[in-house]
């Protein structure tokens, strides 16, 4: 209590001194802040406009705090507070004085609310205030935030800034903003048309929106024609990049299918075990990622590097266990294997339901996998998909190397081609079987780590991918790793090019029908195994 009183005293001193000393602008700034705490959402923008007009040095930080949703006020005395979440605890600061205070209950503070309109206003106001920032990135972002709201005064300001600007990115943003401004409101038709020509090289959606608007509503037919021509030029590029985008989506879906199926390509493809529990190996990998993140809460960005080997080991051990306890007794009895592994899949699902609850678990994405690589305004590749595409290829190559270049790979191929002969040559077939199944399951676990970044981690995760996995392996040709790769990417790309035309549901149906027909024609898939061993 004493402390609070003391703080109140300090605050009073801080509050009263400047008001006495300074001029009217400051006091009206204070009045405006007071009005801000009383205004409802519709009345807020005029007040913010007045606050911006005062040119008070605090305006930028005020607007930033407001935009971040951290500006509150104490209900008792309407003093503005900034409440910032620092590592899970709220830190309360008096906004104007900057003094930290004790946290208050939620009934004692009220938030200064912003909606989308206000957020637009705030970000363009912050843009106006940051035009002269020393960071080129901030300057460029500031200009871009002004694109649609540019008025005559700011346009003049920009033209002036352009003369002093040396950074190329910022220059290009300023040119775009000025071109958009003159296309909209230049005095002469010629100037408008020149500006429209400049815009025809730009892909920014704001520029396109403006051109659409001009094409429809401009008074002068020449301007309308210029807009149509510019749009045609832009649309050509947009369509092209649209295809590039779709191709990327297809590759990305393909990489997910590859990761899901590649483990199965070993257990089903090479060993010939119809493993219905394969999906659950993916699920185990995903849950391992979740547990690893729980164990290292402060290091989300590095947790995936730990999760990859951990998932391989966990899923691999489960695989070996299943092979030793069940599958080895069922050699050459596919129907029993199918039923047994299906049972195992149900057991594993129920196991995670009991251990982790039936609810989906949240796996955080590391920072370096969020957001997207912006190649141009209409083509951006999301980092998570890009990472997973590269990761899938790395896993594939690693597996290929294991199968072709190591002793284990040689044994595996030997055993799968002719078990008895391999045994006669002194290969411990039992051990090789267990290791192979462990390898396939472990690789599936790694796939699960990747899937945890894309989809919900829950007990049903495996169910969603088991059909796809079998589809890919069968389509690619049983026993052929390269076939799995080609099949995964073919199906991914086909799916993504069909999707915009037919819709998601129909696209998957069409792909399935295609595979059925294809298998009728070539029962052994894209790349059938040749030679006596395949018989």
């Amino acid at each position, binding site marked *: 209590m004493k402390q609070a009183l003391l703080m109140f005293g300090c605050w009073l001193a801080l509050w009263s001194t400047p008001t006495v000393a300074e001029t009217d602008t400051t006091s009206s700034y204070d009045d405006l802040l007071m009005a801000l705490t009383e205004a409802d959402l519709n009345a807020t923008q005029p007040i913010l406009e007045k606050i911006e007009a005062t040119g008070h040095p605090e305006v930028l930080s005020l607007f930033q705090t407001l935009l971040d949703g951290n500006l509150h006020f104490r209900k008792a005395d309407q003093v503005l507070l900034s409440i910032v979440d620092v590592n899970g605890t709220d830190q309360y600061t008096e906004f104007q004085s900057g003094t930290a205070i004790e946290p208050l209950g939620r009934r004692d503070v009220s*938030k200064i609310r912003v909606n989308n309109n206000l*957020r637009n206003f705030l970000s363009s106001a912050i843009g106006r205030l940051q035009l002269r920032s020393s960071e080129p990135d901030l300057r460029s972002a500031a200009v871009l935030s002004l694109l649609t709201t540019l008025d005559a005064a700011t346009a003049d300001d920009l033209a002036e800034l352009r003369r002093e600007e040396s950074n190329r990115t910022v220059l290009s943003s300023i040119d775009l903003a000025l071109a958009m401004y003159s296309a909209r409101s230049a005095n002469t038709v010629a100037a408008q048309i020149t500006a429209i020509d400049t815009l025809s090289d730009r892909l920014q959606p704001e520029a396109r929106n403006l051109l659409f608007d001009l094409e429809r509503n401009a008074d002068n037919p020449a301007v309308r024609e210029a807009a149509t021509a510019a749009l045609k030029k832009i649309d050509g590029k947009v369509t092209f990049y649209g295809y590039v985008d779709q191709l990327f989506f297809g590759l990305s879906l393909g990489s997910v299918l590859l990761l899901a199926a590649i483990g199965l390509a070993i257990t089903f493809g090479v060993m010939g075990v119809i493993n219905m529990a394969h999906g659950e190996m993916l699920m185990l990998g995903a849950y391992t990622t979740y547990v690893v993140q729980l164990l290292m809460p402060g290091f989300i960005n590095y947790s995936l590097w730990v999760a990859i080997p951990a998932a391989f080991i966990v899923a691999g051990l489960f695989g070996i266990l299943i092979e030793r306890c069940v599958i080895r007794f069922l050699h050459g009895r596919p129907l029993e294997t199918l039923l047994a592994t299906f049972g195992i899949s149900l057991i594993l699902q129920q196991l995670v339901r009991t251990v982790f609850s039936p609810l989906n678990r949240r796996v955080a994405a590391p920072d370096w996998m969020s957001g997207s690589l912006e190649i141009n305004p209409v083509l951006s590749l999301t980092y998570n998909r890009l990472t997973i595409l590269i990761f899938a290829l790395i896993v594939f190559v690693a597996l290929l190397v294991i199968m072709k270049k190591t002793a284990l790979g040689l044994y595996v191929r030997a055993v799968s081609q002719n078990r008895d002969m391999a045994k006669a040559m002194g290969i411990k077939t039992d051990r090789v079987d267990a290791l192979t199944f462990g390898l396939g399951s472990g690789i599936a676990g790694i796939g699960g780590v990747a899937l945890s970044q*894309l989809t919900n981690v*829950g007990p049903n995760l495996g169910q969603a991918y088991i059909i796809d996995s079998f589809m890919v392996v069968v389509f690619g040709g049983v026993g052929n790793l390269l076939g799995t790769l080609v099949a995964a990417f073919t199906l991914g790309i086909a799916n993504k090019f069909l999707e915009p035309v037919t819709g*998601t549901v129909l696209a998957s149906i069409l792909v399935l029908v295609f595979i059925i027909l294809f298998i009728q024609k070539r029962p052994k898939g894209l790349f059938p195994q040749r030679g006596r061993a395949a018989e």
Partner: protein
Amino acid sequence: MTLKPILQGLSFAVASTVLSTAAIAEDPIKVGVLHSLSGTMAISETTLKDTVLMMVEQQNEAGGLLGRPLEAVVVDPASNWPLFAEKARELLTQEEVDVIFGSWTSVSRKSVLPVLEELNGLMFYPVQYEGEESSKNVFYTGAAPNQQAIPAVDYLRNELGVERWVLAGTDYVYPRTTNKILEAYLMDLGVAEEDIMINYTPFSHSDWQSIVSDIKTFGSAGKKTAVVSTINGDANVPFYKELGNQGVSSADIPVIAFSVGEEELSGFDTSPLVGHLAAWNYFQSVDADVNYDFIDMWHAYIGDEDRVTNDPMEATYIGFKMWVQAVEQAGTTDVDAVEQAMIGQTVANLSGGTAVMNRNHHLSKPVLIGEIQDDGQFEIVWQTAGVVPGDAWSDYLPGSKMLLADWSAPLKCGNYNTETGTCSGTVY
């Protein structure tokens, strides 16, 4: 550790059991809870099970109902729609419950309906839905389309100036009917057909890349565009992740969701989603003492300060309170008596105003629009002036605008045709 506290606790437990059996000599009143505790809908429905259990516990602490204790019977239909019907039958015939609180998806409600009507059960359905239904045996405490979808579209048109619409939904009855109503409504308002894009995806859909990219393309045609999302269940998580990753900001293309509340958002980082919208009859951020009391009660019950409250919880809360009042008024748990006593019951909304159970078995409630904040809560940016009565049969569909539901005497009909003056009897 000494024996004394244990003995004390034991004797207290014994005493209280004896006391309660003495006070409440009769059989318990059974309350069935029919919510998925596993599968794709578990993310949403588990909370509602806990809400019912909390309300039951609270009612028991207050002395039970009609001098009898309440007993909750929980079953898990596992997001498996036909299993809902089986579990409902189990509740009504084997457990002989007096009332059921349950269901989330419309397809599960539709699967339960024939069982309820056959066995004359009573169910409270706490979720916003597509309307076009009014059963004697069901009370709908969630929003009908005119209490959620229509006001949401009005908000987007009037306040944000939206002219182009993406109607994205999960492929089942609720999104399809809601989108049919919205499409008819938008067409009535003069929106051209090429300005409406409709897209359906399966449950648990996870690969949203091309759909989000399509939405981006559709939204860059010079007119303000918004997405009206009836995507349900855990598919929302990858959908919003993809929106964030592809940089679709609420300033360019706002997404308004009808199935995404605080609970769904508590699963992930909402900072890329700030400003996207949701329409509900309740938000946890409602600044009212009755709401804070409810939140405190919830936190005390669940033992976790981080758990959120949401609209279907409020609907469960209102439904439960109304049922208690109706049972007290009727003096029995007999379904027909309670059903008649329910009509006209009032309970204070957590979001302001008073909820009234209307004669069509739907509530009158206020409609709120909220924007997602970076802490996973919603900022209320708009709300209706008063309460809006729920409309069972949409006025915007040609097949249902002449239909009327009125379960009070003398009409007692779920789909009275005002043109022909007949009651067809089938209510769904």
